[in-house]
C-alpha cells in the first residue's frame, strides 16, 4: 500500500513537472489563458508587463490584475465586474511577448437564445456576446438560463473582426434552469 502511494505521488509529481494539463478553474470575474512556452518567470515578465495596463483589469487582484503561473503555463487576468473581455487584444499582447496563446477560459451567465442556426449566450453582466459551438458534457437548449465555464481555441480571435461573437465550447455548467438534453446547434 505504502509503495503504491509513493508511486502514485511520484507519478503525480512527474505529471505536474512535465506540465500535464490540470483542470482549469475560472473564478468569478476572471479569465484564464493557457500559453505555450511560458516556463520561466523572468522571461514572462514581458507578458505580465504588456497585459497589466489593460483597461478591463482589476489591479487590486494579484497586485496588477495579472497572475503568471509557469507551473501550469497559465495567465489569470482579474477583471473589473461587468467588463467585456478584449480577447483579441490579450491574444496580441501575449504573442508580442514571445509566447503563443493556446486556449482562453472564461465564465459567462445568461439565457441561451437561438438566432437562426446559432445558439447565442449574452453575458448578463458585461453584455458580451458568445456563440455556443459545442458542449463538453450535457448539451443545453435555447431558453436555458445558465452560469457556465467555457473555453475556446485562442487562434480563433487572432483574426476575428471587431464585435463578432467568439465561438465557445461550454465546459462546465455551474448552475442553470430549464436545461434539456436536447442537442443544440
Amino acid at each position, binding site marked *: 500500500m505504502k509503495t503504491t502511494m509513493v508511486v502514485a505521488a511520484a507519478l503525480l509529481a512527474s505529471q505536474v513537472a512535465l*506540465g500535464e*494539463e490540470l483542470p482549469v478553474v475560472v473564478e468569478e470575474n476572471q479569465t484564464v489563458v493557457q500559453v505555450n512556452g511560458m*516556463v520561466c518567470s*523572468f*522571461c514572462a515578465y*514581458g507578458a505580465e508587463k504588456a497585459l497589466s495596463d489593460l483597461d478591463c483589469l482589476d489591479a487590486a487582484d494579484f497586485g496588477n490584475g495579472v497572475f*503568471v503561473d509557469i507551473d501550469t503555463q497559465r495567465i489569470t487576468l482579474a477583471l473589473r465586474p461587468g467588463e467585456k473581455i478584449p480577447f483579441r487584444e490579450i491574444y496580441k499582447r501575449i504573442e508580442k511577448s*514571445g509566447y503563443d496563446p493556446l486556449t482562453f477560459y472564461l465564465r459567462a451567465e445568461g439565457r441561451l437564445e437561438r438566432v437562426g442556426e446559432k445558439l447565442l449566450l449574452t453575458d448578463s453582466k458585461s453584455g458580451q456576446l458568445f456563440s455556443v459551438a459545442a458542449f463538453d458534457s450535457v448539451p443545453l437548449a435555447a431558453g436555458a438560463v445558465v452560469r457556465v465555464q467555457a473555453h475556446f481555441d485562442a487562434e480563433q480571435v487572432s483574426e476575428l473582426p471587431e464585435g463578432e461573437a467568439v465561438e465557445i465550447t461550454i465546459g462546465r455548467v455551474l448552475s442553470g434552469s430549464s436545461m434539456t438534453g436536447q442537442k443544440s446547434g
Partner: protein
Amino acid sequence: MDRLRLRWLAFALLLGVGVPATGWAHQPVMDMAPRWDGGWGLQVRNEFRSSNNLLSGDSKRANPQGRKRRVNTTWLEGVYTFVREVRVTAKIPWVEQSRVSVVSGSAVKQTGSGLGDAILGLQLKHYINREASTANFGLTPSLRFPTGSTSDAYPVGDGSWDVGVSASFSHETTFLYQFYDLSYWHNSKGKRGIDRGDEVGLDVNVGVHPYHDNRHNLGFFLMADLSARYEGHGEDTAGTTGGKRVSLGPIFVGYWNNLMLRFDVKFPVYQRVWGSQVAHGTEFNAGLGVVF
C-alpha cells in the same frame, strides 16, 4: 579547419556539459529574455582572471622571472528586441590589466587601462513554443570594433576589425535548462604587430531551475558550464598568443521581477598554449542585469 581542430572540437563536444556564453556579444542578459517585441535590457558584468603559472605547451614550467597576468574587465552590455526573431546586442568593455613580461631578457611590468573593443551582434532567432517547454535556434553575426586603445604597454585593444558568427540552441522547461553555442571569430591583423589567431568556441550551460515563486516573480537557476576555446597561433606586443583550453564551473542566476543577478566561475581543466605563455587562469564573473 585542420584535423587537429576537429579532434579538439570532438573532444569538447564529448565532454558534453556546459558554459555560460558570457564572453559573447549575443548573450547580454539572458538567452530567452527579453523575448518581447520592443523589449530591452542592460547588464553590467565584471570578469576577472589572474595567473602566475607559466605554461609551455600544456606543461607548467619554472617561472623564475615572475611572469604573470591579471585582467579585470567590466562590460556594459545592452540588448534591444525588435520582434522575438530579431534582436541587436552591444557590449562595451572597460579594461584594467597588468602583466609581467620578459623584454630583452628582463622582467618588465606592463599595464593598460581604458575602453576596450566594442562588439555589436545581430541575433536572429527561431522560437518553438510547446505545451511545457520553449526552445530557440539562434544565428548571430557579430562585429568587433577597434574602439580600444593600442598605445599602452599592455594594450586594451588590438586595432583590428573582427567578424564573428555563432549558432546556438537552447531549450527550457519549468525545471530544466540547456544552452549550446558554437562560435567563430575571424581576427584581422591589428596595430603594433598585434595579430591574434582566429577563435573557435563552444559554450554549454546545462542546469536546473530548482526554485521559483509565481506570486513574487522570484527564482533562481543552478547550472554547470563548460567553455572550450581554440585560438589560432598569433602575436601581440609581448609575444605568442593562442592555444586551446577547456574550463568547467558552476553558474548561479537569480531573478526578481525584471532584475537578474548572475555569478559564475570557470576553472581551467585543460590548457595548452602555443609556445610559452602565462596560463589563462580561473575566471570569475558577476553580473547584474535588468530588462524592460
